[in-house]
């Protein structure tokens, strides 16, 4: 596969190294001379000096035969333009953008960017899951399936405590995948009785999220 990476910050650098190790032909684009020289010492031919937002640079990089273009600069507007240019001008079939502001996710999808990755959002949910007192944390978004993985910690006041799973009305689109009780994983069956302090991992779609929160009293 031929992959072009736009933006040679830390993310771009480590990503390029990883992709090269995986055996992909990879080219990193960095516009700033000083940073480019540092990168070139390590990556040699796999880095090109130029602004990935400019069509001229992308032409030189051979964007026409690229399978994937990944934009990982620190600016959302630059990442948007890199991906849109790749798609519109060079017919690149798959574009991936790093999002610094998680609120831009919907816009990028509307504008035809295939995949968005939001480190800010991931870091926030990871930290949130480690904060005491959090009862409902969204851990991960499975975009193509339209599902989220949520972690629920059952409070002693929760209406479901003492009820068997098959007595609980769960949103139709949700699925409890795992219960962790006293540090031991249990694959839940219909007759498992929910206890306080159970840690539950559930798959749920966006519409079912609110209902799931209500069911477990974590809203």
């Amino acid at each position, binding site marked *: 596969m031929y992959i072009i990476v736009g933006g040679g910050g830390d993310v771009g650098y480590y990503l390029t190294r990883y992709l090269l190790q995986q055996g992909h032909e990879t080219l990193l684009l960095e516009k700033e001379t000083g940073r480019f020289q540092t990168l070139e010492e390590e990556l040699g031919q796999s880095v090109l000096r130029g602004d990935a*937002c*400019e*069509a*001229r640079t992308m*032409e030189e990089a051979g964007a026409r035969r690229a399978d994937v273009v990944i934009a990982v600069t620190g*600016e*959302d*507007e*630059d990442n*948007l*333009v890199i991906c*849109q*240019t790749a798609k*519109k*001008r060079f017919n690149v079939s798959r574009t991936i953008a790093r999002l610094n*502001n998680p*609120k*831009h996710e919907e*816009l990028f999808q*509307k*504008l035809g960017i295939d995949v968005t990755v939001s480190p800010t959002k991931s870091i926030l949910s990871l930290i949130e899951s480690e904060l005491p007192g959090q009862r409902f944390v969204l851990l991960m978004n499975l975009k193509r399936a339209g599902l989220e993985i949520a972690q629920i910690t059952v409070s002693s006041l929760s209406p479901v405590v003492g009820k068997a799973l098959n007595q609980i009305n769960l949103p139709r689109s949700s699925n409890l995948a795992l219960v962790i009780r006293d540090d031991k994983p249990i694959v839940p069956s219909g007759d498992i009785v929910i206890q306080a302090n159970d840690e539950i991992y559930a798959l749920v779609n966006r519409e079912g999220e609110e209902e799931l929160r209500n069911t477990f009293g974590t809203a």
Partner: protein
Amino acid sequence: MKIVILGCGRVGGTLATQLDEAGHTVSVIDKSSDSFQRLNPKFKGDRIVGNGVDEEVLRRAGLEDADAFAAVTNGDNRNIMASQIAKEIFHTQKVICRIYDPLREQTYRELGLETICPTQVITNMVSNALIGTRPATTPNKN
């Protein structure tokens, strides 16, 4: 008309002042409050400090019920993204986007943005002043 202008540089500041004088309701956004010094002291519109690609900032500037939006910051990509937010999220009727890079301007014109490329405009004017005719635009291979 209610008009939101993003970027209070020389163009944005002059544009905001003129439209305000012409009786339009204007709000102008810039990331630095210093830029508002460019406005005429009699400017009656709103001055909003903030990042133009942030939906909340655009909302605060009143883009929701604005008739027109102009993105004239000195960053092509910021103008492009803000204009697309105006079109796709706020459904603003008239959206004008300044793009300095002629190739980028062509791409986004083809994608349906109403764009103005000062580089091309000035080149044509200077050329016209020099040799009296506008040179035939050379089709770019890109």
